[in-house]
């Protein structure tokens, strides 16, 4: 099954990249966009159909490698 791991910068962390994107969006007329935060979407193709087990393993993978807990939060999503 395909598992999504969404990684985003923690709220307390400034995202200059997101801010640069917001400025350009604003110059394109998207003035209603007040904040942009850029994250990562990691798609894992995982063997097995035990959802709990798959979730636990994806969680482990996120903690060990996919996200850096100092600056990032993550969320695991199953289909």
């Amino acid at each position, binding site marked *: 099954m395909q598992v999504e791991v969404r990684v985003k910068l923690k709220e*307390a*962390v400034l995202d*200059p990249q997101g801010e640069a994107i917001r400025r350009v969006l604003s110059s394109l007329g998207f003035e209603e966009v007040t904040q942009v935060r850029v994250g*990562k979407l990691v798609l894992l193709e995982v063997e097995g159909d035990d959802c709990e087990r798959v979730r636990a393993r994806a969680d482990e993978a996120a903690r*060990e*490698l996919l996200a*850096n807990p*100092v600056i990032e939060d993550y969320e695991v999503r199953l289909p």
Partner: protein
Amino acid sequence: MTDGGRRPRVAVVIFPGSNCDRDALAAVEAVGGEAVPVWHQSRDLQRCGAVLLPGGYSYGNYLRAGAMAAHSPVMKAVRRHADQGGAVLGICNGFQILLEIGLLPGAMLMNRSLRFICRDVHVRVERTDLPLLRTLQPGQVLRLPIAHKEGNWFAEPAVVREVEQQGAVALRYCDPSGQVRADANPNGSLQNVAGLVSREGTVLGMMPHPERRISRLLGGEDGWALMRALVEAA
């Protein structure tokens, strides 16, 4: 230290994508060490007394700078070496790797300007009482090159406080006279952090490149003492 006239051995770890490894090897030799190239797949450090993690783009800096390299086979040996009090110097990407494996606190964000910055900066030496900094003078200002896009050191406020209380800041960005100022900070790094050192002073991570400044022909000798301290700690 030297035994029977033999030079202290320093392992220079080479990851796929390292690009300062040759400079690092040459610099270790220039300050009197025996430089030993160690491939990242190696599981041991070939009897070296100190380790240098050089700059570059290990694994293309995929995911995060240093994130993949942190899980290379050799890093288990590096961690064991560090845990036993062995000296480890991480330069630039090597510093990022040390943060990723948690040997030093915090993490690197993209530079505030979002740009890759390649130029000389000044850094003030904050500690000289520790093994990897003992060749320097208190308050000494070094002029060294930086070349990175992710050097904007970040940690949560509680961690920043702890880092300051512990005296873990080894080097800070400053102006040529040694004043630590916001406009002397090239990348947005908290507290102008340019380098961090472990409590025992045996693990040092820094964004500037001392290995590129060991000869006047190459723009200066301000990196010499730092490289020498690593060799003496081997």
